[in-house]
């Protein structure tokens, strides 16, 4: 029995949890998958490692919608997941005392869409971690990847690998990866001429098949009805028009302004590897630099776009 399962069993009993949301081994190599534990004995199947890329905070708002009772829910969180939980509490999506936050140290998670793009149909039957390397092998091949090649983009510049707020913390806090400057991609992208930038977004968002996996994987997207699902009035068309796809992605990014925790769930969920992170990251930067705000760090600070200061900069106003 690992330290994780042992401690979680104790927490489950001590806290009288009704349900615990954690990770178990998935059905494919290098894929952890969310699981719901309903009794302490069940906890044996829990795991936590770099294959656990999903942001479980997503399920807290889901639970809220299907259950009217005040069940006590435990949740295993990485740094980014914890920030999402905190942000959801700030946004009054559920009561703080009904949630038991169990932090685990995160060394970065593997983005399945990156794995897919790298390996295509070569199938992994085995893998192991070797320091900063991931060695994957299959029937007729073995490949060694630098861990950074497969980690989610957000992980590479992650400053908060451990939950900033928690009730329990299992293991020793992880060191931030920070192998890359947080805004390097953005600086690089901004050097391009505007038309080229627009073309890039048209190309990326043009691939969108409107499956809404990015939206649905995002813990901060919890609206009862999304604007894309409104039919009276129908805000945007569904017929695959490029302009509609663009608007979906811009508005999605805007709705996450000052709320996004850069967990990478959207990018990992996209079946077509669309770059859904770039715009969100630029918005996150604007919020950080203009309003000095980082989402999900504490339970008191209101979301950046739901508050104001009288002396906010207004250089853009005519």
């Amino acid at each position: 029995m690992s330290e994780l399962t042992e401690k979680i069993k104790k927490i489950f009993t001590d806290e009288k949890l009704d349900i615990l949301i954690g990770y178990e081994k998935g059905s494919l190599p290098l894929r952890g998958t969310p699981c719901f534990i309903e009794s302490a004995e069940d906890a044996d199947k829990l795991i936590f490692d770099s294959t656990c890329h999903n942001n479980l905070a997503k399920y807290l708002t889901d639970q809220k919608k299907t259950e009217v009772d005040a069940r006590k829910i435990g949740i295993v969180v990485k740094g980014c997941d914890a920030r999402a939980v905190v942000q959801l509490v700030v946004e009054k999506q559920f009561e703080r005392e009904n949630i038991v936050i169990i932090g685990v140290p995160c060394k970065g998670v593997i983005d399945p869409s990156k794995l897919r793009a790298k390996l295509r149909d070569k199938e992994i039957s085995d893998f192991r971690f070797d320091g900063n390397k991931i060695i994957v092998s299959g029937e007729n091949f073995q490949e060694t990847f630098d861990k950074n090649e497969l980690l989610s983009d957000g992980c590479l510049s992650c400053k908060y690998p451990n939950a900033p707020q928690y009730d329990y913390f299992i293991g020793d806090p992880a060191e931030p990866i920070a192998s890359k400057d947080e805004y390097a991609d953005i600086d690089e992208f901004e050097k391009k001429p505007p038309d080229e930038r627009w073309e890039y977004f048209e190309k990326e968002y043009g691939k969108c098949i409107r499956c809404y996996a990015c939206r649905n994987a995002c813990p901060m997207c919890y609206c009862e009805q999304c604007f894309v699902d409104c039919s009276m009035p129908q805000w945007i068309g569904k017929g695959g028009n490029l302009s509609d796809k663009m608007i979906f992605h811009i508005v999605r990014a805007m709705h996450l302004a000052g709320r996004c925790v850069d967990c990478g769930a959207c990018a990992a969920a996209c079946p077509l590897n669309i770059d859904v992170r770039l715009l969100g990251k630029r918005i996150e930067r604007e919020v950080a630099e203009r309003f000095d705000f980082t989402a999900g760090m504490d339970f008191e600070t209101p979301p950046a776009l739901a508050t104001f200061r009288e002396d906010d900069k207004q250089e853009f106003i005519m």
Partner: protein
Amino acid sequence: MSDFEPKIMTFLCNWCSYAGADLAGVSRIQYPPNTRVIRVPCSGRVDPLFILKCLQDGYDGVLVSGCHPGDCHYISGNYVARRKFAVLKKALEFMGMEPDRVQFSWVSAGEGEKFSQVISKVTETVKALGPAKKLVKRIGR
């Protein structure tokens, strides 16, 4: 392009800019006829989606005008709107949209003269940019 007449959508706050437009009208102050007005209860009512929707429907520019800071009829609507628009403007600029197509201003009910100046300036800027191409929805691809 000199004969290009842009279409500009303006969202005017009921309590100030809309009254400012009225004042410009009753004072017979001249300004370009390129704007279409939608009256909103507050600049804070304007969702970024409205602005994008206008650009999608072929407007060449969008102006949102509200009360001066501190004058909001609802105390803080324009302050919150200011944050929202600051981010939207940066996001669109980052994506490669001409930033001058989306403009924001504060015009009070007493500023008929300023209203006409704002409209003239927006019209001029958008005219110089030419017809909008980005984000415009083309039916039937």
